């Protein structure tokens, strides 16, 4: 019975998951006063640099501001997270 509840709760269409996803998105913007053009600039430069070494999936590249706990003392610090899917490494560095 409990498993049944759990699995239904995990289902992505449950309203709490909708709330969670919407909340996550809105907080990304709330947390930093960084404009989307600023993030686009970082994104462009990242693509430029990394493309020299590997072929990346530019469409699914994600750059966002978030916060994280610092390892040594657990205080919250802002973090720039870049999720860069790699298609393949380029020949020269292999």
């Amino acid at each position, binding site marked *: 019975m409990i498993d049944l509840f759990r699995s*239904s709760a995990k289902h992505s269409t449950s309203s*709490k998951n909708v709330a*969670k996803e919407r909340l996550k998105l809105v907080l990304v913007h709330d947390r930093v006063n960084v404009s989307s053009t600023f993030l686009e600039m970082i994104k462009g430069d990242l693509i430029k640099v990394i493309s020299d070494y590997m072929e990346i999936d530019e469409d699914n590249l994600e750059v966002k501001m978030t*916060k994280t706990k610092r390892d040594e003392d657990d*205080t*919250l610090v802002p973090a720039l997270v870049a999720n860069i899917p790699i298609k393949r490494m380029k020949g020269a560095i292999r």
Partner: protein
Amino acid sequence: MGEVIVITSGKGGVGKTTATANIGTALAFNGKKVVLVDADIGLRNLDVVMGLENRIVYDVVDVVEGVCRLRQALIKDKRYPDLFLLPAAQTKDKNAVSPAQMQELCERLKQEFDFVLIDCPAGIEQGFKNAIAGADKAIVVTTPEISAVRDADRIIGLLEASDLGSPKLVVNRVRIDMVKKGDMMNTEDMIDILAIDLLGVVPDDESIVISTNRGEPAVGDNRSLAGKAFNNIALRILGHEVPFLELEVDEGFLTKLLKLISKR
């Protein structure tokens, strides 16, 4: 030397005043000398929640303006051994007390009390800034709603900017039936999003409405589940390791939390 804890939330109506009244009463019940300070000047409510509204003579503005002595404005709650209320002024506005005056007031109260709990007004303006000015620690209250969690996140950011880092989270008004159905964010979801430590989870409970109607904090009622949850919060503030109530969190999270505690 006591400790000044501000209870805040950003959003209104999530239960700051109820939390202040109940946590404070529970701390007093556990033998501590406690004063509750209502910092919501112009919209005072801690007095009615505590059932002490008929005993107010002076208020916090009278104290900072020197109209009366601190002692004269403190209302002793006769039901508990060492519990006092410093009421807010109802006819003044949020600018009647400055952050510096608040700091000085907290310093004086700390000399006499083990715990000074400050009930913060909603919002992020001057009233909030005043309320947190003298605080050593902060408790952020939220409910499992998208608007309340969003505001809590904003408040956490502002607290950190004011050197009140590592606030603790109280999740109020959780409906376990809705959580089980996947129609309400659970505690784990909120901790995940807000990235702060959990202090307690309070179930949505009719007994809170009834106790507020009567002006008697729910921690005095043994049958109240919410009262029990608030009492557990007080015990955790006192450094006891109290497991979260069965309904509060699922097993996976509890194990995680225990790990977190044992790391310290």
